[in-house]
Structure formats: structure tokens, C-alpha cells
């Protein structure tokens, strides 16, 4: 029962272009959504998050969009840089203290020169 899905296992984008990573969820109890970035042999690193009361959150080159009715969120990276090449995990939580994160399976982003 996969409650958070990232249907694209990989994505290749040219440097300078926009990268769009998608995530779908099924549990309507999820209240908070996060994106993590992971390099090989390292732990996931928090990137950006969004609460269910918002539909957009922006931090520099990274913007997360949330469509609650569609149970869909996306991460936009613009402009994409070679250092952005990593695996990106979407995660969701029902909120509250020490709520567990439910992760998607990740999308490997390759930014080419």
C-alpha cells in the first residue's frame, strides 16, 4: 500500500532549464509535505516543504506546488544546475509532534551540460 508515489524513476534535464518532479498521494490525512534530496552514500537532506493550507512555497530556485483536490504536488527547480543531480524524495506526514514521514520511492534527476 504505497501512499506516496513518484511515478517517474528518473528525469534528465539540460542545465539552465526547468526540472519538474511530481508526486501523488492517496491519504487525505496528510497535512504536511516535504521534499528531500539525496546524494549517493549520504542521508537525505531537507529541501523544501509545504503545509496543506498553502498551494505554493518558494525558496530560491526551488518551488513546491500543492494541489490538494488532485492529491498532487510538484517540485520545480529553475534554473537547473549540475549540482542538482541527485535522487529527490517526496514525503508526507499527518502533522503534529514526531509524526512519521511516508516517503515516495524517489526520482533520480540528472542535469546535463
Amino acid at each position: 500500500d504505497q501512499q506516496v508515489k513518484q511515478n517517474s524513476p528518473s528525469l534528465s534535464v539540460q542545465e539552465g532549464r526547468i526540472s519538474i518532479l511530481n508526486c501523488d498521494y492517496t491519504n487525505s490525512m496528510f497535512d504536511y509535505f516535504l521534499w528531500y534530496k539525496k546524494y549517493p552514500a549520504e542521508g537525505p537532506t531537507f529541501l523544501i516543504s509545504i503545509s496543506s493550507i498553502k498551494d505554493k512555497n518558494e525558496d530560491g530556485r526551488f518551488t513546491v506546488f500543492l494541489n490538494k483536490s488532485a492529491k498532487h504536488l510538484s517540485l520545480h527547480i529553475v534554473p537547473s544546475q549540475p549540482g542538482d543531480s541527485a535522487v529527490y524524495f517526496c514525503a508526507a506526514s499527518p502533522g503534529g509532534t514526531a509524526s512519521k514521514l511516508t516517503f515516495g520511492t524517489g526520482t533520480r534527476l540528472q542535469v546535463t551540460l
Partner: protein
Amino acid sequence: DTAVSQTPKYLVTQMGNDKSIKCEQNLGHDTMYWYKQDSKKFLKIMFSYNNKELIINETVPNRFSPKSPDKAHLNLHINSLELGDSAVYFCASSPLGSNNEQFFGPGTRLTVL
């Protein structure tokens, strides 16, 4: 360095053995977690401790026993290791009221032969 650290980084052992993985965070966080990333790259929560108290236990076999001697440490002891325990184990921590932004350690790759 302020961080979440884990030891060892790699652990190779025989079936049936007992092993421990240690985790320490010096971020002053109240909550700590253990996650397992299996061969299919699913990252799933196993346990969560808040101020040394177990608050999440995700139907993990009782061969796995977390121990939190203080709120900065959460160790994972595994008895009678099985082949299926081979995975990367990540420790994480978060402050109270953080809206679930969790900080991850670098991971411990466990290989059971």
C-alpha cells in the same frame, strides 16, 4: 560539526549474529527516528523516540530493539540477523514543533551474508 552521526557506516555480518548501530545527534532535538531503506529504495520508518520514550513502532520484528539512553542517542540493536535485514539504515532527528522537518544521518549499510 553539528549533525546526526551514525556508526558504523558499513556493517557486514553472518546470519544469526547480533549487531548494533549507534546514532547520536548534537542538534539539541527532542525526537529521533530509525528508517530502513531496502533494496527497492523504499525508505520506511521503523521507530521514533521522543525524549527517550518510544512513540512510533511500525510493526518491526521484535528482533529489532531500539534503545535511547538519553535524548541525544538512539541505538538500534538487531538480534539473530536474517538475509532480509540487509538494507541501509538511517537515523534522523527533529526538534519539537518542527512540522516534521527531519535531519538524517549518513546511513549504515548492513549486509547479512
